[in-house]
């Protein structure tokens, strides 16, 4: 297996995506990898910009500080598209992420439904390894993180 240089993690502001970011920061420190936090700008976000393209959201800055992440190895990347397409592109240039990390559910998803599940879509179509970080609800149900490692 090649050295893991860059990990991309999806972030939409949901509690699950924050959990995915924390998990990623922890892994990145262990394997000395860089982290790119990826945010997908959907159609509706054009009407009301949720996150700055230039600056990492304060909530993420706080998590990075809490996790003692080296700021020079951390990047905020905003791209147009649905979450699934944007995350899949993160495995290709220019990001070239060697690992994709997603939370099990983003905003607005209903429990147990496959339709619209970014995590499952990414796991199904990605050409790079994918880690799906379970939500706290799932953890409490003793569910296990689903990993799809090549």
């Amino acid at each position, binding site marked *: 297996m090649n050295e893991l240089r860059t990990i991309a993690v999806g972030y939409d502001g949901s509690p699950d995506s924050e959990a995915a970011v924390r998990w990623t920061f922890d892994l990145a420190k262990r394997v000395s990898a860089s982290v790119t936090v990826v945010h997908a700008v959907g*159609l509706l976000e054009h009407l009301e910009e949720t996150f700055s393209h230039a600056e990492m959201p304060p909530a993420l800055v706080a998590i990075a500080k809490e996790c003692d992440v080296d700021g020079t190895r951390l990047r905020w990347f905003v791209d*147009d598209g*649905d979450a699934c397409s944007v995350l899949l592109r993160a495995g290709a240039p220019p990001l070239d992420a060697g690992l994709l990390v997603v939370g099990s559910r983003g905003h*607005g998803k209903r429990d147990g439904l496959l339709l619209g599940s970014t995590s499952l*879509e990414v796991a199904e179509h990605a050409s790079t390894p994918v880690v799906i970080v379970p939500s706290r609800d799932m953890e409490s149900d003793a569910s296990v993180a689903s990993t799809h490692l090549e």
Partner: protein
Amino acid sequence: MLLVVNGTYDDADHEDPGHPERPDRVTAARAGVADLHLGSDLVVVPSHCATRAELVRVHNSDYLEELSAFCYDGGGDIDADTFATFDSMTIARHAVGGGLAVIRELQRLDEGVGFVLARPPGHHALADRAMGFCLLNNVAVAAAALRAQGERVLIVDWDVHHGNGTQQIFWDDPAVLYVSTHQWPLFPGSGTASEVGGRRAIDRTVNVPLPAGATGDVVRQAIDEVAAPVIDAFHPTWVLVSAGFDAHRADPMADLQLTSGDFAEMARSVADFAPRAGRLALFLEGGYDLKALRSSVHATLNSILGEKRDVNELSSTGGPGKDQVRRALRERQAAVEIVLSSHDEETEP
């Protein structure tokens, strides 16, 4: 003669309060048609609920079952942009069926222009996934039906967003030519000039990404200089238009600067690609400013039907993007060369 789909199935129940893709859009577009005062030259075509056999030409069976189940379970948010209600699957099937009904009626009459005035829109819908307000790909199902009859179908997509779903569905199909002008970068992020089609359909995808602020003269340049030579070589037997009107300068969803006069000019250009009468149909895609939608629908159809010029808004000029159009031409030519050379290498004994 204008053939318009009658929304025999009320689309009002496909609504999420506050969402811009709303029933009022159809009301505004209908008003744009009414403003034409066509009298007996307006033919109302009843839609039907598209059958499974018609849908699976384009959509994955599992996806259709999943979407149905999701709706009948009460619906909800499919992703950050896209919703469905209990009635959405039925309404979306009627939108698809409306397109098929208009095509059949044009074939029967062998004259006129079709306008599929239905929602939800379709051009972002992938074979196996809803996205970008779209559940089923209306224009793609219509194109697939024509293609099954041996037709060569040109799809021109002038919605401000790239029609990633339509492009994906026909990516490797040499009998369908997909042409898109769109703002870029913008949702869905695809639609670069170097996307030129799959190995079996090289040069059957034409994308001209345009910068924010681009005006009508830039879009016309894109059609004339980049798309027209490819279309002429393709010799389409049918022309379908993904007619979104969100490139209008008043639309809140994007930043192009088109006017209703620009849509009138684009419509005239695109209508000229149809080989004869009765071989042109437009499908409503985006367009979220109701006043702009009404005036743009009116100007577009007025122009195609050969009526007097729309005088409410003159065509626009002077925006950025002419250099990008020239660059797009170079990039796609280079991409075609690369794909062709890699194809040659693989087929050499």
